[in-house]
């Protein structure tokens, strides 16, 4: 049965792109080295790279270089072109190789794409999906390891989805492509090889709806991206201590599913937020502020944030390891909140 099919996070993303390109001929795909090799067709060297993590391998072979376009190292240029092309009848998926390059492409997204709907009084759509890559853990150093979704969340006018599972990766991408507004999807590089259940047929997952991954009564843990798995490890440890946590995967940062979080806190009375990004002015702080504002009456303990250190992502493996949150830090945060 297709329902039981297990594929990887990267395969799920590739499948979503290919199915949407099949469905709608206006869907085009831009990025750097997304096929690679310059399509030296006569030498049979048409698809020799497939993106930095192999996610897009085979897509240009299937749909051709008119719709799968390798871009020069001009992030402001091609992301900006993707923004405007998305207002002119195309439905653009653009890959930004690492989210650390948002600083280069940022003007076109934050001063451009984010303002279009507002400026046009809601009339002008911008059918733009940006896929980009977050996360530390591969010793890739400070220019390829940051988690910068809060940067984008700060700017009104862009939706932000952050899938943690292959199932969500496919469904969120399909929703983003079919929608009329700019969406940035932040994929965690350490998740590409993780596997999970993904239906073959196309499906949408709403952007703006969080997911209760585990039910519990004692404390609520809200996670972003890969932190879900740290929290699940922590939950196992906590259960042995008789503490039963509820885990909510944020899934989307914009819109933020406040209701699901508040409802859970109203049940548990405790809130811990786990985010791999740096803490200052980050997503975890934002969610904490929301809960302090709207769920204070339900809270029986301090809101605890578990984040990375407020430092650049260090290269040295020993430092990178302690830079990031781990399950023990989550366990301690929950116990501190309950204390």
């Amino acid at each position, binding site marked *: 049965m297709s329902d039981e099919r297990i594929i990887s996070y990267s395969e799920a993303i590739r499948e979503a792109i290919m199915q949407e390109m099949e469905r709608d001929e206006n869907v085009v795909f831009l990025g*750097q*080295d997304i096929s*690679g*090799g*310059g*399509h*030296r067709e006569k*030498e049979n*060297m048409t698809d*020799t*790279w497939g993106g930095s993590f192999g996610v897009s391998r085979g897509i240009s072979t299937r749909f051709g270089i008119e719709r799968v376009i*390798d871009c*020069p*190292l*001009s*992030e*402001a*240029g091609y992301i900006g072109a993707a923004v405007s092309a998305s207002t002119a009848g195309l439905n653009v998926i653009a890959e930004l190789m690492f989210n*650390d*390059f948002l*600083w*280069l492409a940022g003007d076109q997204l934050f001063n451009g794409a984010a303002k279009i709907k507002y400026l046009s009084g809601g009339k002008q759509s911008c059918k733009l999906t940006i896929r980009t890559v977050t996360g530390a853990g*591969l*010793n*890739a*150093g*400070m*220019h*390829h390891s940051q988690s910068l979704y809060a940067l984008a969340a700060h700017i009104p006018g862009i939706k932000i989805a952050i899938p943690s599972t292959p199932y969500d990766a496919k469904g969120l991408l399909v929703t983003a492509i079919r929608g009329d507004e700019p969406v940035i999807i932040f994929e965690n590089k350490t998740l590409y090889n993780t596997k999970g259940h993904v239906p073959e047929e196309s499906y949408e997952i709403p952007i703006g709806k969080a997911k209760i991954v585990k039910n519990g009564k004692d404390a609520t843990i809200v996670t972003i991206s890969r932190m879900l798995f740290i929290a699940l490890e922590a939950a196992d440890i906590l259960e042995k201590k008789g503490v039963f946590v509820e885990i909510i995967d944020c899934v989307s940062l914009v819109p933020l599913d406040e209701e699901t979080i508040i409802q859970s806190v109203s049940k548990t009375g405790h809130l811990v937020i786990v985010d791999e990004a740096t803490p200052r002015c980050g997503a975890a702080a934002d969610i904490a502020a929301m809960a302090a504002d709207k769920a204070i009456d339900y809270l029986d303990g301090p809101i605890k944030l578990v984040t990375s*250190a*407020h*430092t*650049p992502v*260090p*290269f*040295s*493996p*020993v*430092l990178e390891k*302690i*830079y990031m949150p781990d399950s023990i830090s989550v366990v301690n945060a929950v116990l501190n909140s309950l204390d």
Partner: protein
Amino acid sequence: MYASKEGDVMEISKDILTKAYRNMILIRRFEENLQKIYYDGKIPGFLHLYTGEEAIAVGVCLNLNKTDYVTSTHRAHGHFIAKGSDVKKIAAEIMGKKSGLCRGKGGSMHMMDMDNGLYGSTGIVGGGFPPAAGLALASKIKGTGQVSICFCGDGSINEGTFHESVNMAAIWNLPVIFVCENNLYAQSAPQEYHQKVKDIYIRSKGYGIQGTCVDGMDFFQVYDAARKAIERAREGKGPTLLECKTYLYSGHYVGDARAYRYPEEMKYYEENKDCINIFKNKVTETGVMCENEFINIESEVIYDVKEAVDFAVNSQFPDEGELHDNVY
């Protein structure tokens, strides 16, 4: 006596020739060693090697003073070695050790060594252009006579930072030389696929600066062109875009299978255009150095590389307490 690109004859001292060979073979053997120990699992993260392009870093940097500036790329080891950074500290940094140039916090792609004028490697393509202009601006305003070298690749020429920085260098008449290592590929993209022009140096015309192009596999052409550009810069005659045609033996990073390259192309460069072989042949022809001298230098270098790698392997990782140092 050796020929410049224009065929002019130039005299180069034996001291310079010895340093040139030493540094080129040092970079080559260092990189080969790194590749080996990378596969042994001793190097974390990603590793971008410089093998094949040695004549450029060495040919340019032999014309520099210690206080002159260099901005580098993600493919930085050759630039650091040629500019005089300590090989032991480079190796240690690449392995994430406390004894590294940046105490292990940067790694290969994020090194800095201002004691030797190295503003740094960068993980951001095109990230070196504005700093090169800014360093040159500082030396111009302060009247120090320092020049600034910006090593860059063919792919980075498509970044906005290139165009913005070259224009600023032009209007402010800055002592900066943009040294483009055109190795024909931007990651996997062949040059003809990402740029309509084959000769990058002609872009200098659009900004009103000096531009020149040399065979980057020929140390003597690079050395001569860099010397002239650096002299011009020091004399206040402004920036130069120096294109060096070259070829990278390794893939984009260690582990890249190079499926996007023509096998015959790789073979051609390794067999016919190797910068170290070309150098040795030319120097041997003049009778200034003989094979035995090359062998002796190489033996010393092999020892130095082993010493550097052993130093790095045996060094400690940083203390966990260092994580929070130097942020606010």
